[in-house]
């Protein structure tokens, strides 16, 4: 379970998160929508401790992420994150990209890491690309590789930050299909997305962010068809 309690976060004098409360239960899929600069990405990086917070708490399975005593490297093994820019490691083949963390972080022997990597890459449809370098693949393939790379650590939770935003429209579908597959397998996920149709399909709940505040959170039918907050209405009207 991910418990976010009254989280505040500032960059300099700019307050980006103004008291966020959100609890995500195991198996739940929560999507986050909202305008540019509303703090969606920042929230994700505060969840896995890539960013510090000013006040409040993020607790993952009982571990306070921002407590001094928390081993973040250990915590991040159970919280995978995939970014808009997939950040393939260009000097490694697809297989090596996915094997690296299982080997170096989990300390698995080569054969075992390779077995896991092959399984995850097959899962995201890249079984044919094992020995290829990322530069030889499309953005969609690289993004799926990044997803496999995160999954290879067997995370309990996955955070996705607009993973289709940097892709050609033609390649968006294959990546969304991968996310749908994960959702249907019961992965606990928080997805920041601009794909409203996708959000409606996969989400248990949809959260709408506005200027650092979670203005509204509700099941998709309600949030999309009967939004309560005026800002949600405005945002949805603008995206249609």
């Amino acid at each position, binding site marked *: 379970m991910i418990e976010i309690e009254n989280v505040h976060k500032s960059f300099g004098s700019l307050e980006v998160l103004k008291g966020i409360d959100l609890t995500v239960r195991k198996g739940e899929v929560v999507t986050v929508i909202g305008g540019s600069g509303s703090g969606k990405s920042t929230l994700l990086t505060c969840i896995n401790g890539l960013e510090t917070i000013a006040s409040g708490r993020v607790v993952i399975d009982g571990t306070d992420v921002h407590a001094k005593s928390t081993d973040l490297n*250990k915590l991040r093994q159970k919280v995978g994150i995939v970014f808009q820019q997939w950040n393939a490691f260009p000097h490694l083949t697809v297989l090596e990209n996915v094997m690296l963390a299982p080997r*170096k972080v989990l300390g698995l022997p080569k054969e075992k890491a390779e077995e896991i990597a092959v399984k995850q890459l097959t899962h995201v449809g890249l079984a044919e690309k094992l020995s290829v370098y990322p530069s030889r693949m499309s953005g969609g393939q690289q993004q799926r590789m990044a997803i496999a790379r995160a999954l290879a650590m067997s995370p309990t939770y996955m955070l996705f930050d607009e993973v289709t935003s940097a892709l050609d429209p033609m390649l968006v579908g294959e990546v969304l299909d991968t996310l749908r597959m994960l959702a249907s397998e019961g992965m606990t996920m928080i997805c920041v997305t601009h794909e409203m149709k996708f959000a409606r399909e996969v989400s248990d709940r949809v959260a709408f962010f506005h200027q650092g505040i979670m203005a509204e959170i509700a099941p998709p039918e309600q949030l999309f068809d009967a939004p309560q907050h005026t800002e949600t209405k405005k945002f949805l009207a603008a995206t249609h």
Partner: protein
Amino acid sequence: MFSYTFHWNQAFRALPQMLDGALVTLEIALLSMAIGLALAIALTVFRLSGNRVLSGVATAWVEVARNTPALFQIYMAHFGLGNFGIHLSPFTALLAGIAFNNAGYLAENFRGALKAIPETQARAGRSLGMSSLQAFRYIVLPQMLRVAFLPATNQMVWAILMTSLGVTVGMSSDLAGVTQELNARSFRTFEFFALAAVIYYLIAKAVTLAARLLAARMFRY
């Protein structure tokens, strides 16, 4: 007006001697690169350390190495330090001078290479649970090496050519030194220096070629 008659035989007879000198040249260049690399890594760490004294020393080193004549750097190592009672042999002074120069250029090269790797790369590593050291070691460093490799090769060639400045501090066993002595004995300046130039050229080309082949093997992406 063109009354000089070439005596190439004399030069070719001295070839074994000159090749021995070439080995010394190569030895100094390789040693100076090894020392220069180690120093450059230290300088790079110093510059990133955030410690004012360390980064000040490193910056000064890089500035002086890159913006003063290499000849002066070697002179300083020999005669300059001599004034303070530190007497380095021509070999050591030459090696120290070139290593000093190499370190400055390589440190700057490393800094550029580090800047060329987007921060998001290390961040991606960190988000997979790697420590910052692991992210550096397995993700940033290998990519840095590729960026830094060709400029470092150029520095190696430059180091080979710089060894010829050793004659000014009394170095006599390297290629330039040997050539200079042969010249002094025979006055066959053109022949000896032309032959030496060809040898320098061939060494430099061989190093560049070897580096290219190595790069093609190491950096396949």
